């Protein structure tokens, strides 16, 4: 029971402290889920992200479900997800009820402009970790660069890149193994 509550609280913290959607959550997950709690490894979080990109639903929720289910089964999945959405329910309800012009407030605009720079730096740090774990040879370097440039320059859904990268990984390993 205690660990279920722990899952709820940890994901509530991740959800409540993340500004800017799924990718901005990575530094928080690395801090809370990988570093503090050891509920998943850095590699597992990467795998969950990749799967979360091409399965239905919000990526943050997909990752929460993965971690919760891995540690405490179905109940774990439910508690982690509930934790992840809890801060949103409270904060958005208050804003929708009382602060309709919240996003237009000057102070909010300035604060968020500062936060956006910070999230950029945090994500850059997270990417450096991901890069070290994922880019292990020339083939993986090519995959990472192709995905990065492809996403930047083409208007294509990330699903295609994820599926393509999985396929490429499989083919490279297969060709390498046959040598």
């Amino acid at each position, binding site marked *: 029971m205690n660990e279920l509550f722990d899952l709820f609280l940890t994901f509530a913290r991740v959800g409540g402290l993340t500004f800017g959607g799924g990718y901005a959550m990575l530094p928080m997950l690395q801090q809370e889920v990988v570093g503090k709690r050891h509920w998943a490894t850095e*590699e597992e979080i990467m795998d969950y992200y990749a799967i979360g990109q091409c399965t239905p639903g919000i990526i943050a929720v997909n990752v929460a479900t993965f971690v919760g289910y891995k540690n405490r089964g179905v109940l774990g999945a439910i508690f982690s997800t509930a934790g992840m959405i809890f801060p949103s329910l409270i904060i958005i309800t208050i804003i929708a009820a009382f602060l309709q012009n919240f996003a237009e407030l000057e102070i909010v605009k300035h604060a968020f402009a500062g936060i956006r720079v910070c999230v950029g730096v945090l*994500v850059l740090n997270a990417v450096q970790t991901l890069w070290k774990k994922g880019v292990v040879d020339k083939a993986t370097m090519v995959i*990472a660069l192709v995905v990065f440039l492809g996403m930047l320059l083409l208007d294509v859904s990330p699903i295609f890149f994820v599926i393509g990268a999985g396929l490429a990984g499989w083919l490279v390993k297969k060709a390498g193994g046959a040598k």
Partner: protein
Amino acid sequence: MLYLRLFFEFFKTGLFAVGGGLATLPFLFNMAESTGWFTADTIMDMIAVSESTPGPIGVNMATYAGFTTAGVLGTICATVGLVCPSVIVIIFVYKILEKFKGSSLVNNVFYGLRPAVAGLVACAGLQAVYPSLIRLSEISGLTSLLSAIQWEGIILFVALYFLIKKFKKHPIVWIAASAVIGVVFQFAA
């Protein structure tokens, strides 16, 4: 009945919106048209609020839409509807993965997926942060290049980069500090 319908509409959104928060947008516009629960203008408000508050953007939008439509109980119906398909699908995916764990097929696929995630996240981060560093739309020649550069953003970016490396603090410390700096130095949105 409205509650059930909210749940169902967002369940559909959660089931078919693949690829994260903003992928729910087309579904919201569609919902606005077919149900009349909210207008396209309200959706623009929802995006603005969802992006400037903590939490997953998709969840924030569902909560906002639920509240606009049916009050506090509506937030719960919409949000739970949105996340239900994720929870169900991921549990199935996890079971399948467990079954094939250690097989060379799964290992080889993930060997390709991990660098792809690094590339995806790098791109998402860059797209979110670059307007704070340079305003591409304001560049029309060499002279305007200098004014398009957001110096205060770049200075904060570089300073934070080194500070975060040096002092291992919780990310929220840096986020809070940046919010204060943004307000004090009147960062442009």
